[in-house]
């Protein structure tokens, strides 16, 4: 009855020296689930998802992705990173490579794909994010929204099962947010497992299966969207929602 669990966080704790940034995090993600994580800045939301692909390391607790436990073992880490894609707030496209080369880089060097095959896949994803004509351009020649869409295509080209989004639209000008959210919605409809850290509540209402509110390193509330927005249980959740929904 329950779907396959692809990500498990059990009693995960993390410190930066003496600052306790993640406190007893328990999280289960099922295949195909779309989870939106929100909360005030400094609450640990980015840190949490960055632990999942080991850009940050946890000190206590257990993180399992697709049955592989995340430890210091480099082989496990590589395996997990091949199957988990990440989209960054600052895009982080490679400025010295063309758009096409940005996307084909990992398939060629990590999956050892022939160049032609990689380029075909890359063009397919560029079509999917609706900017195939930019293939030969360089990141510096693209707008913010276009760059982020290329970044999404770049992660998708590795055919991941899970996509992590770390505030993907926070660095964009308002008129470009929609084009990126549209791509993410399409991805959600196709069944991708997604963890999204964002302030875009409209997107959350459309796409999320599960809402998570984090504050001061803890998961304070976890509920389905209807429950979460209409009937938040915790006081802090209520406070946060009132601040963010009053624009």
């Amino acid at each position, binding site marked *: 009855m329950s779907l396959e669990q692809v990500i498990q966080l059990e009693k995960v704790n993390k410190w930066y020296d003496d600052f306790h940034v993640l406190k007893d995090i328990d999280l289960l993600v099922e295949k195909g689930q779309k989870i939106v994580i929100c909360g005030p800045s400094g609450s640990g939301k980015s840190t949490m998802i960055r632990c999942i*692909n080991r*850009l940050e390391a946890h000190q206590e607790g257990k993180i399992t992705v697709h049955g592989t436990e995340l430890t210091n073992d480099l082989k496990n880490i*590589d395996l997990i*990173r*091949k199957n*988990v*894609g*990440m989209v*960054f707030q*600052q895009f*982080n*496209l*490679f*400025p*010295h490579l063309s758009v096409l080369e940005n996307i084909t*880089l*990992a398939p*060629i*060097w*990590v*999956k*050892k*794909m*022939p*160049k*032609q*095959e990689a380029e075909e896949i890359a063009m397919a994803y560029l079509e999917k994010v609706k900017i195939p004509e930019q293939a030969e*351009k*360089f*990141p*510096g*020649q*693209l707008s913010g929204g276009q760059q982020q869409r290329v*970044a999404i295509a*770049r*992660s998708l080209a*590795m055919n991941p099962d899970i996509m992590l989004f770390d505030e993907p639209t926070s660095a964009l000008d308002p008129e470009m947010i929609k084009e990126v959210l549209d791509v993410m919605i399409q991805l959600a409809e196709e069944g991708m497992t997604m963890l999204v850290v964002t302030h875009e509540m409209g997107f959350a209402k459309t796409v999320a299966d599960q809402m998570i509110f984090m504050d001061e390193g803890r998961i304070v509330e976890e509920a389905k969207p209807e429950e979460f927005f209409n009937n938040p249980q915790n006081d802090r959740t209520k406070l946060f929602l009132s601040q963010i929904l009053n624009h």
Partner: protein
Amino acid sequence: MQNSLIRKVIFDEKSRSLLIQTLTIGIFAFVIYILVQQTAYNLDKRGISSGFDFLNMAAGYDISIRLIPFTSEDTHLRAYFVGLLNTLLIAVCGCFLATILGFLVGIIRLSSNWLFKNIAYVYVEFTRNVPVLLQIILYYSILLHLPQIKQAIVLLDNFYLTNRGFFMPSPVFKEGFGIVIASLIFAVIASYFIKKYLKKRQETTGRQYPIFLINSALIIFIPIFFYYTTGMPIEFDNPVLKGFNFKGGMVVRPEFLGMLFGLSVYTAAFISETVRSGIISVSKGQREASQALGLKNNLVMRLIIIPQALRVIIPPLTSQYLNLTKNSSLGIAIGYADLVHGFGGISLNQTGRAIEIMMIVMLTYLSISLIISIFMNIYNKAVQFKGNA
């Protein structure tokens, strides 16, 4: 009416600028005219002739460090070339050594070991804040206080460290060595084609080949193989102590070594700073994005970090090379026969043709600077990030 014409001229932008420029040229021309007159008068008074004919007269002095044959009967023109070659020699060797040392220290400065990092920092700060001339003189003094020839420090049986230089065996190339050289050239060319071929195969099949290892092995082992199969056609002429000097072999003079160490160590400190800031300039997100895609660390370095870092490093690196080349002119302080010492110093004293000689020397350095700058601009334009980034 006169008034308004003058007003017009002064306040109209175009005519004012024309007026100023004409005045400037006028003043310059006047000053230069006076200078030339005065100089001609002074030269005449002192009985110094001018002209470039001295280039064909015999130099009358010896140059001990030289790459081409030269005796005191050779012309000043030839002395110029000897000096120029010596300058280029020390510049090339110095830049080479400085680059290696500089990159090494730069990378150490970025390591996570606090002690290594700070030892390197101390080296950089001390070297950068002390005049290069002092460092050159210091190394030269140390080299001059090596033991005398009769009590030379012996390394590996045939290498002698003395205060008159570093004596070592010189290779004598026999018949058959040509084959070894040919095989080396062949190996280099072959490696170029192998690299192209293997890269193409990677594009079509996706398999990766250790191109660097294969090519290195080729370039190292093929000539070695031919060396042995043609009967080892290199003999060494060993330096042998006869009386007060060594006969045979070859020697690297302390003047050259002093310049080399002084210039390299000094310039390496500056290069290390350039390298360090170049690598730091690549944003952290680049590393994270490539890691998130699953790239292993050596690929992250090779494909993402280093290409971007090099773009930032190369322009200031080139200006360091220029500085080293200009600093080679300090050879005169310790007797290294570079361009300024021989042609610019001794020839000048002997012929008195100060203006001509200085002009030639300065034009030479200018040309070198210009050539290096042109290459740098070409490289810079080629690797600019396209777009507004």
